[in-house]
């Protein structure tokens, strides 16, 4: 029954509404409440100062993203190759028709979705385990554990890709030697010559590099589960698993959702690992790589822009679905608010 106690009652009162996906409840300082219609000189000065300070960052963020995406939408409507600039021709949604009827797009989409789903699920489990370890760790090893965990977080993705690639590579690797006793693995196994094995290594590198991030987010969520709740459950005779399932996980649902959304959006943009390990060969092509290949390698600006726009729409869709789900969860977890 302990699980029914809203965990937020302790935190909700004290915590500032911090940065959160749902900024709807931003503190607002009683903007609507206290302000009479006639703003005093001081209020107006404060507003002006607010925009003077926040404005430059805001404008730059818009310039470096909003402008390019609008430009991409515009260019996606043309047949346009940089090598033949004179033949630029308006073709409406023609590029989109070409892409959406091409099996390359669909296989890229499924590969990307597969990588996203698998890595996020594995990272959620692994990251949760790591978060539990860091949460419960003794003072003496806590620093050591955190330092170790931050190494993959900070390391360059390309470096991670090379580390995993060289370990598995048929020429320079040692994995075939070490795990030759496993069925299916022998000296002649070329991991990067067929889709499934190549995807396995790509995902392993991705998971290794990004699990620390998700585990830190989950650690923050764990820290917010009041100890009294877990203690109470323990006193009531709950097993470890019951404590997890009935007390801890329900109380950190918001943190889990945020972590999953962030990671899913990040995984969906996967590029570096695939580029280094297979460059998209053997059915490992992902959407970012497809866009890169069209516009940067083949200079097909029109087609490349259309792929970019479609990728952007996919990200928006993921966000939209997640935030719709979030709304429900956040409302539930915000307790008294």
């Amino acid at each position, binding site marked *: 029954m302990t699980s029914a106690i809203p965990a937020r009652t302790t935190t909700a009162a004290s915590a500032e509404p911090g*940065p959160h996906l749902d900024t709807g409840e931003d503190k*607002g300082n009683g903007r609507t409440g206290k302000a009479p219609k006639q703003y005093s000189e001081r209020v107006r000065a404060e507003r002006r100062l*607010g925009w003077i300070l926040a404005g430059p*960052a805001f404008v730059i963020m818009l310039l470096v993203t909003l402008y390019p995406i609008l430009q991409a939408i515009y260019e996606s409507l043309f047949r346009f190759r940089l090598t033949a600039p004179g033949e630029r021709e308006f073709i409406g949604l023609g590029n989109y028709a070409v892409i959406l009827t091409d099996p390359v797009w669909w296989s890229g989409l499924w590969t990307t979705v597969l990588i996203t789903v698998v890595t996020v699920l594995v990272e959620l489990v692994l990251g949760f385990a790591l978060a539990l370890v860091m949460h419960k760790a003794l003072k003496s090893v806590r620093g050591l554990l*955190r330092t170790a965990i931050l190494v993959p977080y900070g390391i360059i993705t390309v470096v991670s890709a090379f580390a995993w690639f060289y370990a598995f590579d048929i020429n320079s690797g040692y994995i075939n030697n070490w795990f030759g006793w496993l069925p299916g693995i022998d000296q002649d196994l070329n991991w990067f010559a067929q889709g499934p094995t190549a995807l396995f290594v790509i995902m392993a590198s991705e998971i290794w590099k990004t699990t620390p991030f998700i585990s*830190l987010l989950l650690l923050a*969520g764990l820290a917010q589960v009041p100890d009294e709740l877990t203690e109470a459950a323990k006193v009531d005779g709950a097993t470890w698993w019951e404590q997890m399932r009935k007390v801890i996980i329900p109380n950190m649902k918001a943190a889990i959702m945020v972590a999953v959304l962030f990671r899913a959006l990040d995984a969906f943009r996967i590029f570096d690992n695939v580029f280094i390990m297979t460059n998209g060969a053997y059915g490992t092509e992902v959407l970012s790589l497809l866009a890169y290949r069209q516009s*940067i390698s083949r200079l097909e600006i029109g087609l490349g822009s259309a792929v970019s726009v479609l990728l952007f729409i996919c990200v928006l869709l993921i966000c939209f679905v997640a935030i719709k789900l979030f709304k429900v969860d956040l409302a539930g977890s915000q307790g008294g608010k």
Partner: protein
Amino acid sequence: MLTTKAKLLWALVTVLVLVYALFPVLSILATSFKAPSDLTSGTFLPSSGTATTANYEQILVGDAQGLFLSALRNSIGISLIATFIAVVLATLCAYAIARLDFPGKKLVLTTALAVSIFPVISIVTPLFNLWRTIGLYDTWLGLIIPYLSLTLPISIWTLAAFFRQIPWELEQAAQVDGATTWQAFRKAIVPLAAPGVFTTAIIAFFIAWNDFVYGISLTSTEAARPVPAALAFFTGASQFEAPTGAISAAAIIVTIPIVLLVLLFQRQIVSGLTSGAVKG
């Protein structure tokens, strides 16, 4: 206090986590000391007696130095400048968000969030075209500007979270005690805010340092190509020689700053990452 069994269990868990976190790094470290003839030995460590620093010599003083050192200089310069600009702008922005009341606060935070989930590749195509037209292609500035799309949003979120925790009343208290506005700010607020700003800078630097997509798309020569992109285009000493050793050595060199920052500031980085992302 702990039973022997619990102690053993913790030791085991600690070792497991260490192996998980460090094994790939050790793997590439071992590869970086392998001689070319030893690369195909199929072992983790270089064969005994053959370990060599030749790979490091090749990229630092040998044939590949032009390629690697210029990339290193580009990476350091571009990442530091992009970090600096982002942190300065984000500090002002986050101060306004935490301290002042103005309409549009939510809009700024939402924009930062939207920018941070933006697929980088969608920005690259139009920039590639534009940069070629206006001459920013293959220049430092041509990378610094798009890097801001990576470093600014996270800096704003992290700093806003930090600044909200600062007891700003201290500033007034100091003024009541006779300090001038500037003194109050410098003596009471700066010491409290500085660690947050510094931590944010580290996180932003990691992100800029990690970039690959902009690096390979918006540069073409040693003039601006950063290390991750340069690694992808490394070739061996001859066309028959794989660049495995040189790439591994270069990978280790660019990992050193990361490891140092992590060793020195793990506590701050953890608090920065966790406070910025999930609260309440």
